[in-house]
């Protein structure tokens, strides 16, 4: 068993990147991602990590450099938040189409404005359709484990796609908590060296990122989406084998206290653990409630999600992002879509809360539960959503 260390989650994430033995870190500092790259720059500077640290002049360059690094067959890491992600947006899409297995930690932060540095999921939702594998983390341990998982999956020749690890800004990045590190041997056993399919090399010239004329563009896009959809099998295997190595097993969809649960909370990211305590409390009060935590966001785990919710009468979907003018938050929209033709069609209520780091307490979640029950009683199939705790609403 690896050593159990108390450390800020940002620093343990950086230590995991070190254990993954990356070749290049190209990043531009932005709150709340900063501590991750600061620590990596220290690790490179003091010789603990043999990698290039490139302090680029913008996030656009961070992703461009990462693209070049990955294209020559080296292991690339980058990290950003919110506005930084927006600035690199263009290249985020391109590296997915080029099938470059870059790993990025996204310290989730709201998109301004009003100007905000605090946490929610509006940044990642703005690039939901960028073609990367996207996972969420509940705690620091998951962040650490998922860094090694990320390279294993992304670089698998069956996958060859970039991967985003979403971690809630501040709420996770700035928390000190215990994390069990991996032994070097465990990393060696779990994560093979990166063996790219094609690389940029003067002796073996190829063209990457070429033009796709209309006659081939659609085929190129299907050739990109199919492996993303198919990557789920590899993701499940990689999580299973991670468990075999370090004893912590992860699944695309995690469930908690599902026994005969009529109503299920659905969460993404660090809300999950807090809501698990709410479920305990509500169960003690005699409520029939459970919890579904979505860990894998893209490719969306449709089968696993339908399976998890197959017995539920009601879903309370918690979104930490807005789809302006849409049908609630992005998670709820996908879930409605996933269950539209399902055999079981539970009532779906949707609450948007925790925007820009607004604290959501156990009591708040209890209020949400009771409000949801009330709404379902009044109008079971109403497909609306509610902003929780907004003054004047």
């Amino acid at each position, binding site marked *: 068993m690896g050593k159990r260390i*108390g450390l800020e989650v940002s620093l343990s994430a950086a230590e995991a990147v070190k254990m993954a033995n990356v070749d290049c870190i190209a990043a531009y500092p932005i709150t709340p991602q900063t501590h991750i790259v600061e620590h990596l720059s220290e690790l490179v500077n003091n010789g603990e990590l043999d990698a290039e640290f490139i302090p680029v002049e913008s996030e656009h360059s961070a992703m461009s450099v990462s693209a070049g690094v990955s294209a020559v067959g080296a292991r690339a890491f980058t990290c950003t938040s919110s506005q930084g992600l927006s600035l690199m947006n263009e290249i985020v899409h391109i590296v997915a189409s080029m099938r470059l297995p870059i790993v990025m930690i996204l310290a989730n932060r709201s998109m301004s404005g009003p100007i905000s540095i605090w946490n929610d999921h509006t940044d990642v939702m703005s690039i939901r359709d960028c073609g990367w594998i996207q996972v969420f983390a509940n705690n620091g341990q998951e962040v650490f484990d998922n860094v090694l998982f990320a390279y294993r999956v992304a670089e698998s020749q069956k996958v060859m796609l970039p991967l985003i690890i979403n971690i809630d800004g501040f709420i996770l990045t700035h928390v000190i908590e215990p994390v069990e590190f991996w032994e070097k041997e465990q990393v060696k056993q779990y994560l093979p060296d990166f063996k790219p399919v094609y690389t940029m090399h003067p002796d073996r010239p190829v063209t990457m990122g070429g033009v796709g004329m209309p006659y081939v563009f659609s085929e190129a896009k299907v050739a990109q989406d199919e492996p993303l959809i198919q990557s789920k099998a590899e993701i499940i295997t990689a999580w299973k084998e991670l468990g075999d190595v370090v004893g912590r097993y992860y699944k695309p969809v995690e469930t908690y206290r599902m026994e005969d649960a009529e109503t299920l909370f659905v969460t993404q990211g660090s809300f999950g653990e807090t809501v698990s305590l709410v479920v305990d409390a509500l169960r003690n009060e005699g409520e029939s409630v459970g919890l579904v935590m979505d860990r894998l966001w893209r490719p969306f785990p449709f089968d696993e999600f339908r399976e998890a919710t197959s017995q539920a009468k009601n879903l309370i979907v918690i979104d930490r992002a807005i789809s302006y003018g849409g049908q609630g938050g992005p998670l709820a929209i996908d879930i409605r879509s996933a269950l539209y033709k399902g055999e079981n069609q539970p009532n779906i209520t949707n609450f948007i809360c925790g925007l820009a780091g607004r604290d959501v307490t156990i009591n708040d979640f209890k209020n949400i539960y009771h409000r949801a029950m009330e709404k379902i009683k009044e109008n079971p199939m109403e497909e609306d959503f509610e902003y929780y705790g907004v003054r004047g609403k």
Partner: protein
Amino acid sequence: MLEIRLHGRGGQGAVTSAELLALSAINEGKYGQAFPSFGPERRGAPVVAFCRVDDKQIKIRSEINNPDLVLVLDPSILRIVNVTAGLKDDGILITNTKYTADEIGKELGLKCKIAVVNATRIAREELGLPITNTTMLGALLKARAFVDPESLIGPLKDRFGRIAEKNIKAFKRAFEETQLAF
């Protein structure tokens, strides 16, 4: 689970104190969690930091609204922030002040348990600076020994390197000099 809220001013090390407490708990094999009030860091502004300690995994991630212990690093904070907001009925306020617990209780109209220490004086004498974060940890553990004071020595050494000894001395002095009014 024990929940501690720390009040200080930006730059005084409230976050570091919370971190050291969590680390000492983790090093004892317990679970510890520490985090700042999130946002931009502004030197001198009143800040809050949080620490939780438990024997089992800590899952809650919201702020601490009903602390068991409140630690105040800077006496001037007492008059501008309602530091005992939400303090549990049997909770303890541990504050840096040159006054007695009775005097502080009377001035602020507090009914809770109070522990006091003149941490500013100790810090000036031991560190040469009025930075009271490590000093006040001694007062905190005197008021409630939820971790072994010895468990803090390792994290203090890791954190402060060559000035660790001075901080350890200030920490130990505060542990001795803290007055408990309960």
